[in-house]
């Protein structure tokens, strides 16, 4: 517009810069600034209020000596691994089934996906009810004549996290199915034809040709599931509130409870920094593969 006047560098493209102010503030103040603030304060003696009194790794030592934190980590690991495996497995299988040119595809897809529209709070409460031994599945099976049948995951410390997993899979697998289905639809028809001509059985075509071709979809899905797992919080709050006892605690709940209930900020900061570290362990290799690899071609 005013190019021939050659204005000062800073004022060029002024409107765009103004429009980008919220983004710059979010990126620098919230994502970089607030994270750095929390990481720094995880090395301090902060209790009721944040202080800058340095105590080195004390908070982390205390964190890792807490039984509750260890259980949280263990639960996260169990929940994470199983939810990763089953989400991928169920999601892919449902997608493959829907991809067989079946009738009512839209109906089935609607049924599998609707739980994803619901919040984790709603999901947790529904499954609290379905898994309630006095009313839910256990009672039904007992009423059918199996008097000794026991299925009460939410009241059994040993298996409570699997009860949470059940609900989590119910809510999230529909999304994975959708992503997988989009991936399957992106595969060239000719590949299927060629495989059929060569007489390769269907399962082999999936395993040896289609799945390797869908590698980018799998990687994206993997990152999505992994990033969601670390944040799991509402589901546990609604379904079990960490119980029975502390058997279904998760790291995100530890952070919230220590920051806003137990008035022990330092522990909350240290725990949240550990959560960040967990994400980085997943994210850095992915970013490296995704973006580091591409640079070679450019």
């Amino acid at each position, binding site marked *: 517009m005013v190019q021939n006047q050659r204005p000062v560098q800073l004022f060029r493209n002024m409107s765009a810069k103004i429009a980008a102010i919220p983004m710059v503030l979010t990126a620098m103040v919230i*994502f970089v600034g607030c994270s750095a603030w929390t990481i720094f304060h995880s090395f301090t003696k902060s209790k009721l209020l944040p202080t800058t009194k340095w105590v080195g790794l004390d908070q982390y030592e205390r964190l890792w000596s807490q039984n509750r934190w260890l259980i949280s980590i263990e639960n996260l690991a169990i929940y994470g691994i199983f939810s990763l495996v089953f989400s991928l497995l169920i999601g892919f299988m449902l997608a493959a*089934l829907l991809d067989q040119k079946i009738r009512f595809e839209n109906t089935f897809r609607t049924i599998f*996906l609707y739980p994803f529209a619901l*919040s984790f*709070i*709603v999901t947790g409460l529904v499954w609290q009810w379905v898994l309630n031994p006095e009313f839910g599945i256990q009672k039904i099976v007992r009423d059918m004549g199996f008097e000794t049948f026991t299925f009460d995951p939410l009241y059994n410390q040993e298996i409570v996290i699997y009860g949470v997993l059940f609900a989590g899979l119910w809510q999230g697998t*529909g999304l994975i199915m959708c992503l997988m289905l989009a991936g399957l639809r992106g595969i060239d028809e000719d590949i299927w034809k060629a495989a059929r001509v060569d007489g390769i059985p269907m399962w082999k075509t999936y395993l040896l040709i289609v799945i390797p071709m869908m590698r980018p979809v799998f990687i994206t899905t993997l990152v999505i599931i992994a990033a969601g797992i670390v944040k799991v919080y509402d589901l546990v*709050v609604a379904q079990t509130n960490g119980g029975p006892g502390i058997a279904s605690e998760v790291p995100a709940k530890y952070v919230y409870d220590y920051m806003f209930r137990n008035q022990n900020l330092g522990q909350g900061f240290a725990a949240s920094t550990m959560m960040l570290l967990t994400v980085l362990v997943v994210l850095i290799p992915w970013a490296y593969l995704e973006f580091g690899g591409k640079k070679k071609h450019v």
Partner: protein
Amino acid sequence: MSGRNIMIYGTLFVVSIYYLLPLYVMVITSLKGMPEIRLGNVFALPVEITFEPWVKAWSSACTGLNCDGLSRGFLNSVRILVPSVLISILIASVNGYALANWRFKGADLFFTILIFGAFIPYQVMIYPIVIILRELGLYTKLGGLVMVHTIFGMPILTLLFRNYFTSIPEELFKAARVDGAGFWGIYFKIMLPMSLPIFVVAIILQVTGIWNDFLFGVIYTKPDNYPMTVQLNNIVNSVQGVKEYNVNMAATILTGLVPLIVYFISGKLFVRGIAAGAVKG
């Protein structure tokens, strides 16, 4: 029907039951009276249909000292939702437009930070944000929560809009500039009218995401302003008194209703929205 088809439809049918069962149980439980629930089977249809649990859940269920039901949480959620959706989309769309068409030095760096920031667990940032909001006088106010939703919606929305605006042919943009249109002129007269579908996707994404939020609601508001999800959890998981399962189920359905309606109305667009939103992680 061939054996193969029976297998496929059989499997899909059985899996459908797993997905539909909880919804079915919720709906029928909410229509039963308490005596019937204690005696009967959760899967049995109600002998006598009653809407009382729904009325109670909406207008007189108690959370702590307030006994005006979920209607309070519903209104709060609406008051949070409307400005959050509008402001976050407005800011992100203008931002995405600036990134796509008015590139300036440093833009890519901030954008990269923004996208990677989407993967940082919220727990790392929640406390410093409390301090920031307190300094601004917005802590526990609805305005503060709107700001938080705008901030955390920004990565995915900006990405969505940037990618969409990049796909619009550049000739259009250049022609408009030759005709003397400026930054805002092009945005309002050309980009906005051309990108209604992406705005719909963004709205779907934000409405479901913000409505379903629990963490920010519980941290950045106080009991009077609690959104519906927080209030629902307080009603259902309160330890006092006899558990009224029918009221709880009615309350749960009421809370899930808004995103469910969005889901059933929007159909294919919803899938597009979540596929994009999933990156939010």
